[in-house]
Each structure stands twice: as C-alpha cells, then as structure tokens.
C-alpha cells in the first residue's frame, strides 16, 4: 500500500506547498498577503497543538500564552537590547519550550477538564504578567517598534517576504511534525491517547511522552509568536488572552483528531471568517455590511455547523470521502457504524 498511494500523496502535498508559496507571485495585494500570513501563523501554532491534542490527547487551553511569550521574548530583546532576529527567535522558542515543560507537570496528574483548567489557569496568570510587567512588555500600551525579521543581509520588510518567511516556517513545521507523527514518537503519543495502561505495557513512559508533546507544541507556539511580533511590528496583551486559546482549541476539534491537514485547514477557515467581508471577491456593499455586523455569529455558527455535520472534523470528512472514492481510507470509528453488529463481548471488552 505504500508504493503508489504515498507517491501521489507526496505529489499533492508538494503541489500544495508550491501553490501556497507561489501566492505572492500571483498577486501583489498586500492586504491579502497579510491576511494569509496570519493564517500561516495560526497554522504553525495549530500544527503543534494537533500533535499535543490530536495525537497525544492532552488538552491545553493555555497555548495563547506561549504565543505571547514567544512574541514578547523576541520583541523585547530585538527592540530594547538590540539582539539580532535569530537570537530573539531562539530565545522565544527556548522560553516557550521551557514553559511547555512546566505546563507538562500538571498533565502528569490531571486529566480532561481538570487539565483544561490547569492550562487555563497558567494562561490567565501569563495574561496578568503580560499586562503588569510593563518594563519588558510595555503593559497595555504594548511593545511597538519591533524591527522586521532579518537573517544576515536579508531583511523581511515587504508583505511578500514576510509571507514567505511565515509560510516557509509553517510548511517546515508541518513536515517536521508529520515526520514525528508517522514514526515512533508519534505512535507513542497516539498510543498514550488510546490507552495510558496499554502504552505503559508497551514500555512507553507516559510522563516523558506528555512532556515531549507539551514542549514541542509550546516551542512551535513560541516560534509563531516570535514571527507574529516581527511581522506585525507591535504586540499587545489583548492578542494572547483566553479567547485566542479557545479559538485555537476550536480549530483543532473542527480540524479533527489524528490529522495535521484537518487542523491546518480549520485554522485557515476560522482565521479567514472574520476577514470574509474584505477578502471574498465581488460582494455587494449590503453583503459586506451584513458580514461585518454578524461576524461574531458567523464564527459561532461555523463551529457548530462543522461539529454537527462532520463530527470527525474536516479530517473525518476527508477520510470518509477518500474512503468512498477508492484508496484504503477508513472512516474513523467515531463517525462510522462498525461493520456488523458489535458483539456484546466486544462492548464488554472495552469497558475498563
């Protein structure tokens, strides 16, 4: 099964990557590029979260805090201390990864809603510190004048350059995480999600797997935060509050578990909804006014609609479609009725 199918898969992914990277050549509309750059930033965070949540099954409502830590860390050192961009980037990813390590501690003892609250607590404390640590973060006035990203002589000062920087990193992140997911470490995470007991019986140490998943996902969120700071040039606490964490989780579940493409697509969908009124082509002013007025509702309705009609999320729909049009796709268990009446013995078997 590996042969023909995986080559087609590789080809399609490569094609998509080329299409995404080719966008700046096809249009010089700076606004469109900036909006799609925001999609790229969210895609990086969501890729990390998909590993933590979709595969390792650890819920986190605190990743907006890592996004913030990355943004402030790099923003501060490059603006106030004159560090080069790459040093700021390294600090941002490093600090966030350490934060992820710390946040892994509660996950070793807590599960489900309790873990969600612990990560929520961490994020709220971070939000308070972003506001109160005025000498570093600039408090509510925010940190402004953050220089453009620059690697050696190359300065990313145009929307095209920033777009390529962000989507280059996003594609690299997706490839890296898909490498993890389709081999030993990713399997250990999925095993942990399936059954912590079964994973221990396979010689998998739950503590180290959870810590690894938290650290990588936090590091990626920090990376995205750093790019966000340098792309935007300004960072304020309002972007890293509870609402952002909740929307990130919504992107994950709308995207579907055990998938990278689903959450990235959901990140695009839920990021673009608020901008729908200005990026969708050929809308009459009345429609634009309607979209602008009812923006909040549309995000809510989109989330509800996807969850109602595609419980497996976007990934579930794709798998179901692929399953129907040839290819060995298997509809996920949650959505599909298992072949033949599930024998009572089997039901009994899974009741631990």
């Amino acid at each position, binding site marked *: 099964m590996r042969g023909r199918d995986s080559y087609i898969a590789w080809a399609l992914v490569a094609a998509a990557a080329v299409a995404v990277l080719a966008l700046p050549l096809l249009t010089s509309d700076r606004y469109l590029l900036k909006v799609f750059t925001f999609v790229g930033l969210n895609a990086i965070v969501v890729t990390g979260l998909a590993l933590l949540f979709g595969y390792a099954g650890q819920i986190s409502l605190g990743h907006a805090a890592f996004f913030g830590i990355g943004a402030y860390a790099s923003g501060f050192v490059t603006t106030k201390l004159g560090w080069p961009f790459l040093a700021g980037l390294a600090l941002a990813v490093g600090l966030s990864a350490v934060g992820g390590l710390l946040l892994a501690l509660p996950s070793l003892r807590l599960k489900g809603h309790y873990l969600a609250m612990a990560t929520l607590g961490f994020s709220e404390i971070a939000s308070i510190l972003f506001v109160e640590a005025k000498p570093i973060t600039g408090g509510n006035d925010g940190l402004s004048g953050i220089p453009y990203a620059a690697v050696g002589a190359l300065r990313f000062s145009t929307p095209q350059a920033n777009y390529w920087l962000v989507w280059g990193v996003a594609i690299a992140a997706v490839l890296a995480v898909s490498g*993890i997911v389709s*081999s*030993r*470490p990713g399997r*250990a995470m999925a095993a942990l999600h399936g059954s912590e007991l079964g*994973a*221990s019986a396979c*010689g998998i140490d739950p503590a180290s797997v959870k810590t690894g998943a938290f650290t990588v996902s936090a590091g990626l969120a920090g990376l995205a935060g750093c790019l966000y700071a340098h792309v935007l040039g300004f960072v304020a606490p309002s972007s890293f509050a509870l609402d952002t964490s909740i929307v990130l989780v919504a992107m994950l579940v709308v995207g579907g578990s055990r998938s990278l493409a689903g959450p990235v697509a959901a990140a695009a969908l839920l990021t673009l909804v608020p901008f729908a009124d200005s990026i969708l082509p050929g809308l009459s002013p009345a429609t634009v006014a309607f979209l602008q007025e009812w923006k909040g509702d549309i995000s809510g309705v989109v989330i509800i609609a996807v969850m109602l009609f595609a419980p497996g999320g976007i990934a579930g729909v794709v798998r179901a479609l692929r399953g129907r049009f040839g290819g060995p796709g*298997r509809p996920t268990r949650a959505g599909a009725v298992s072949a033949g009446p599930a024998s009572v013995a089997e039901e009994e*078997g899974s009741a631990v």
Partner: protein
Amino acid sequence: MSLLSVHGLTRRFGGLVALDGVSFDVHEGEIKAVIGPNGAGKSTLFNCISGFDAPTCGHVVFAGVAVAGMKPHAVVRAGMARTFQNTQLFDEMTGLDNVLAGMHAVTHTGMLAASLRLPGALREERRSREEARRLLRLVGLGDAADSQAGDLPHGLRRLLEIARALASRPRLVLLDEPAAGLNTAETRELADVLYRVRDGGVTVVVVEHDMGLVMEVSDGIVVLDRGCKIAEGPPRLVQKDRAVIEAYLGEEPSDDV
C-alpha cells in the same frame, strides 16, 4: 537459576488481603500457568509483578533484577511484557501500528530524528515494520495489519495484544486470561500461538480459567485461592491435589467463612 522468582508477595487493600505471601519460580523456556477461582488474586499478582501495582511487601526478581515497585514501562524495558484481562489496545490505530507501538522499548528514534527524517530513523522504521508484520503472522493476524484495532472481533483483539506484547522482544510474557471469550477453534489456535511463542525462546506465564488449555500447554501450574498459594507442580499432580479440588469444587464443608 530461575528467570522470574516471586518471594513472599503480599498485597493488602486496607483490611482485605488480596495476596498473602505468594512465592514461586518460573524457569527459562517454561509455560507456567496460574489458576484459581475468581477473586483468588490472580490479576493482583500480575499487576504487582508487572509494576501496575506496588506490593505491600515481598520481592519480585526477574533475570537477577529486583522489579517490585518499578514503573510499568521500566519493567517492560527489563524484558517482561504483559497483556490485560480487558484488552488495552489502541482502537483508533491499525493492527500494524499497535504492534509497532509495542516496539517502543526496543527502538530509539527520538522526536528530532523523526522530524528531520534522518536516515537512521527511516531505516529503523522500515525494519520495525518488517518485524511487526512477522509478529502479526506469528499470531495469525497477517491480513489484519491495515484494519483498525477497534473494528476487530474479540478473538483477534486478544491475539493482537499478544503480538504487541511480543513486539518489545521480552524474555518473559505475562498473559492475563488470553482465552477469555474465545470459542473452541480460537482456543485451539491460541494454544498453537503459545507453543510458537515458547519455541521462539519467550517464557510464558498465563493466568487462565480454561482448564483444558491449561492442562494441555503448561509445564507447571501455580494454584491460588483467596490470595494464598495452595499448590504448585506439573499439571498431572495438581489435577489430583485435594486442596485444589476443594478450592474449586468446595465439596468438603470448609471452615465457616
């Protein structure tokens, strides 16, 4: 020298004594059965040996290493794998991936190597897949590689969990009621699997209620009743032992409980 030596193993849950000073030895290459009526402490014994539960007191020495109180994943690395009475498979993953996950202890690709798809990682992945397919064929699940564990019927799930346990290349595997819920044909097939496992050099300790299977495959039997070892020895002797019959059939008016 015995591969696994259990000495004076006791486990109390408050007032209830689930295991009371159980001692026995398992030798390399043997198939040892542990039998006893429900609630005799068989599963507690397995949990204490495999690290899922910490004994109140007593020793468990495996290949010269004291494993009592070690964390479960460390026990697996020491070379002792196990299955569960209620199968703990990864339902959302395919059969092949379940067995691949079982190889975690004997493979070492880290997150960095995997993310960069380093040659070493890809090579290990290829070798692991081949070995996983071999193990699936060993237990007769060759064609279940791509189906999801959750969709497999009960009997195949048991065999898949055995394959997964073998994936960590253990020297000893603890099977917790592998024949539960199997029909006669499936039990027949399970016996062959046990022989193939033993012939592959893996010592087997199995908890089982199916007396036919136990009598046929086991080299030695340990009998537990109410947390105590009441008999040990080859199947022929244990079958006629008064205490065993009494424990199971309770003919003699035993002391008022």
